[in-house]
């Protein structure tokens, strides 16, 4: 028997529009192979609908595996440089996985939504945070 299809998977994601940016807050405590496909699918749909300035709030995420990382990389690749996906407030343990895989040098990561939205509103070259 195959694993359940992605459309049957649940991803608790809270979304809000702020200017021309969309902030999506992951409400799942675990972003793993069970939940990440649904996040990947939702992010793909948002980008397809024209949301190209995205901020993903990870503050509630306690555990992430490579599937979770892959979902974010997939969204970034889908943007193809036309827009940006920034990350907000990962916990230290979660942030350590970005550092371990060097993805902290791929994504812009901010401590809070205010700074993330300010960065999204600015040209990318003017708002690179410390990585």
């Amino acid at each position, binding site marked *: 028997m195959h*694993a359940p299809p992605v459309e049957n998977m649940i991803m608790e994601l809270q979304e809000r529009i702020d200017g021309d940016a969309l902030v999506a807050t992951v409400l799942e405590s675990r972003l793993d192979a069970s939940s990440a496909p649904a996040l990947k699918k939702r992010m793909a749909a948002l980008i397809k609908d024209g949301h190209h300035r995205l901020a993903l709030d990870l503050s509630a995420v306690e*555990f992430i595996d490579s599937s979770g990382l892959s979902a974010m990389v997939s969204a970034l690749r889908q943007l193809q440089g036309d827009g940006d996906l920034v990350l907000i407030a990962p916990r230290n343990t979660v942030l*350590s996985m970005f550092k371990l895989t060097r993805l902290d040098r791929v994504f812009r990561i901010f401590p809070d939504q205010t700074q993330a939205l300010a960065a999204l509103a600015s040209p990318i070259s003017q708002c690179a945070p410390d990585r």
Partner: protein
Amino acid sequence: MRTGSISLTIDSEFQHVFLVGIAVQQICSWIPLSDQSAFEMEMAVVEAVNNSIEHACHNQSGHPITTRMKLSEDRIIFVISDAGDAVIGLPEMPALDDHLASPPERGRGVQIMRAVMDEVAYRTDGTSNFVTMVKYLPIVRTEDN
């Protein structure tokens, strides 16, 4: 420090993997490892179990995957086993900095396992496949009175 071993078996579905991860994390916290190290042990074991589901069991349920965790004085050993298809072996660790401009979507699981564990090995005996991961524990010296 007390020693012992435990085996946890789940069916080959991603939705069950978190149970193994939580058990590993809780046991590692008890040892005690730091929160960061316990997180890393959980991460590595979850990646190994995920790989079994995906590559050995081809995302099909109905195949038991067992995680054996053995705690000794100086190390903790994890053995993840399945009876699925064998793979050629664990890929070598790629250079992490090579793809920053266009990062690949997948392929980080083994990177993570190798990065956080002291030893990672894969073997198959023709019937079952085994991923063994070892983490050396800091030696705690007690003074003799």
